[in-house]
């Protein structure tokens, strides 16, 4: 039985969210003997309860509370109320992620100095460097059991990977492998090895893929310093007259409101809910929302330049068998503006089952051009494009002017326009991805538009100067010393890499800082 804490106990650290950022921070603090109350909006499932069925699983895990997608991006047209595909459950989107664990590259911490000032972008260098984060990357890779680090072997390649690898070889790409994945290739950390089941996006029913749900949170609970409260939706962060935060108001599963007192509050609700909560916590002292003296809360929303290329061959592939993200090509991840854009992108294998392929291959399409593609399902291979998108001030989370949630609070409006650099990068990636599959005999290729965002980043960004962003190099808000941000919304730029490893590394680093500052009585 894990420890419980009193609502009036103002000595605890309250963490809002239990995903890669919040779940890791909670365990790290608990390991140091710091008392933590973790409030999670979703339910708590165990991994045996996950469902190998795309729509049923979506119904079980997805964050389905209404949001509005606006702007010129394709997702706003295809999925006007589902801008993001993320999870509402203990473990957060670390249940859904595919496991790719790549470090950001050095230049990606210095986008403004490397790419220069781009029109229509709001680039900024991170206040930390790769060198500063490297020790924490190493800790995160060990904690998560990332393959091809710490002597852990790579995963075996499935059919989808083999097609990608053959194409990569034909195009002359040199950096194609089964990747660095936080999926056990052999038993480790009390968790078993990958059974090549597929359904990585639906939660790993073996627990072979790292998730805070079973790899971090139970360890924190075992210390007696961590209490997780599922179905606890935080509505507001309270503060005192001096401007320090004092606790949070949350609704329990019956909609009943409680206030949990806190010494420190860490916000880790993903890049849509985190800024929404800060904005919804406005007060007479902070009329524009908490931690928002810069006006940057909610701005610089990034979601990676994405898209997919599926290809049909004249023989079977069975791409859905085995790990969903079974291979990575890194050759295009470099910064090389001779391609017509700055930054770079990764290719990563992807697959969808028939139900999601019908929904995502070409949303809205009908007729034989579309259905004959599905008829070739068994002969299909697929890859996903994940590239660096450019931060823009206009791309932002705002509070919707009319629509309210069940608690009467404004819902999130997620506005996004592609920067011309994003569009140029995506077109380049479509061309390369198509060439890759044609090189191994694809009979048809299908450039597929972006899915609802899984990599939501940047809306409470780190900055050296308080005027340029929301938090400092430790994720501590510039305005309020005992208010932290602990998720991907801290990212100053997105890089070309899947963000989870960096989120976890930042959380480990932040835990050290919080413990030090608490001990020094600075917060």
């Amino acid at each position, binding site marked *: 039985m894990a420890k419980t804490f009193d609502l009036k106990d103002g000595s605890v650290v309250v963490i809002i969210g239990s995903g890669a950022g919040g779940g890791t921070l909670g365990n790290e603090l608990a390991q140091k003997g710091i008392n933590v109350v973790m409030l999670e909006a979703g339910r708590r499932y165990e991994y045996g309860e996950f469902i*190998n069925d795309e*729509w049923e699983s979506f119904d079980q895990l997805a964050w389905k509370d209404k949001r509005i997608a606006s702007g010129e991006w394709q997702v706003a047209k295809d999925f006007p109320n589902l801008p993001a595909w993320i999870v509402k459950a203990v473990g957060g989107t670390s249940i859904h992620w595919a496991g790719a664990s790549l470090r950001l590259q050095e230049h990606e911490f210095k986008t403004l100095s490397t790419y220069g000032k781009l029109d229509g972008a709001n680039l900024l260098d991170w206040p930390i460097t790769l060198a500063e984060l490297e020790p924490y990357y190493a800790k995160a890779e060990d904690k998560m059991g990332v393959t091809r680090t710490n002597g852990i072997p790579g995963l075996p390649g499935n059919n989808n990977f*083999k097609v990608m690898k053959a194409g990569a070889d034909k195009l002359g790409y040199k950096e194609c492998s089964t990747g660095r994945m936080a999926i056990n290739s052999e038993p480790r950390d009390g968790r078993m090895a*990958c*059974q090549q*089941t597929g359904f990585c996006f639906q939660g790993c029913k073996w627990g072979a893929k790292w998730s805070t749900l079973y790899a971090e949170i139970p360890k924190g609970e075992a210390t007696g310093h961590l209490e997780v409260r599922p179905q606890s939706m935080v509505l507001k962060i309270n503060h005192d007259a001096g401007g320090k935060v004092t606790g949070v108001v949350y609704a329990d599963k019956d909609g009943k409101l409680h206030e949990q007192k806190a010494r420190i509050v860490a916000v880790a609700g993903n890049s849509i809910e985190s800024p929404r909560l800060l904005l919804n916590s406005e007060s007479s002292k902070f009329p524009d929302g908490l931690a928002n003296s810069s006006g940057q809360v909610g701005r610089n929303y990034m979601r990676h330049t994405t898209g997919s290329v599926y290809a049909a061959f004249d023989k079977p592939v*069975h791409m859905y*068998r085995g790990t969903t993200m079974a291979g990575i090509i890194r050759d295009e991840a470099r910064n090389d503006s001779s391609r017509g854009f700055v930054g770079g992108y990764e290719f990563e294998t992807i697959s969808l089952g*028939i139900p999601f392929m019908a929904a995502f291959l070409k949303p809205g399409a009908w007729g034989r051009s579309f259905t004959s593609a599905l008829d070739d399902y068994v002969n299909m291979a697929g890859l996903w494009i994940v590239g660096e998108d450019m931060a823009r001030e206009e791309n932002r989370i705002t509070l919707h002017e009319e629509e309210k949630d069940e608690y009467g609070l404004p819902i999130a409006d997620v506005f996004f326009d592609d920067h011309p650099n994003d569009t140029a990068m995506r077109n380049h990636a479509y061309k390369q991805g198509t060439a890759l599959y044609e090189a191994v005999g694809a009979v048809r290729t299908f450039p597929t538009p972006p899915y609802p965002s899984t990599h939501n980043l940047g809306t409470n960004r780190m900055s050296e100067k308080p005027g340029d962003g929301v938090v400092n190099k430790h994720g501590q808000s510039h305005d309020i010393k005992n208010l932290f941000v602990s998720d991907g919304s801290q990212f100053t730029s997105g890089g070309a890499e899947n963000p989870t490893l960096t989120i976890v590394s930042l959380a480990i680093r932040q835990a050290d800082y919080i413990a030090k500052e608490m001990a020094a009585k600075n917060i």
Partner: protein
Amino acid sequence: MVTVNDGKPGLSRRELLKGGGIGALLVISGSAVISPEHAWGLETSALKPETVATLIQMARDIYPHDQLADKYYAIAVKAHDEKAGKDQAYKELVEKGVADLDAKAGGGGYINQSWEDQRVAVLEQIEATPFFQAVRGGLVVGLYNQKAVWPVFGYEGESYSKGGYIDRGFDDIEWL
């Protein structure tokens, strides 16, 4: 309520001949759409059976898969009959939508345009209407989320209970 029966429809040849013929494959009998050849029937409660028969044809024309029997399209559109039973405005949307489709198709209505191209040309005229979008949108889940159609596409579905694919062909590609 709509019921989908997989058993024999129990129609005599004479009843069959008496029933209103719709296209070559489906028969209207009372409040049901019946496929004598494939032994299934779909009983309608809110929508006219002729309307449902048209929806079935329309469903096939929107997402044509020659290897899928009409039964799956019938299952995919039955939700419209259920919804029409609870929502008068929706019932009107569908009935008027089909009437409009028939009017635009001319001679003999939509279902009697014998080539797919002819029917698709009519659908293209109504593509932007709420009626068309309701039918198309419903099919994305209604058709492709039927577990019975997955094997037709070669999709194997759930794999955890079989131990995943680690010993069942995750890397069995031979033609590369």
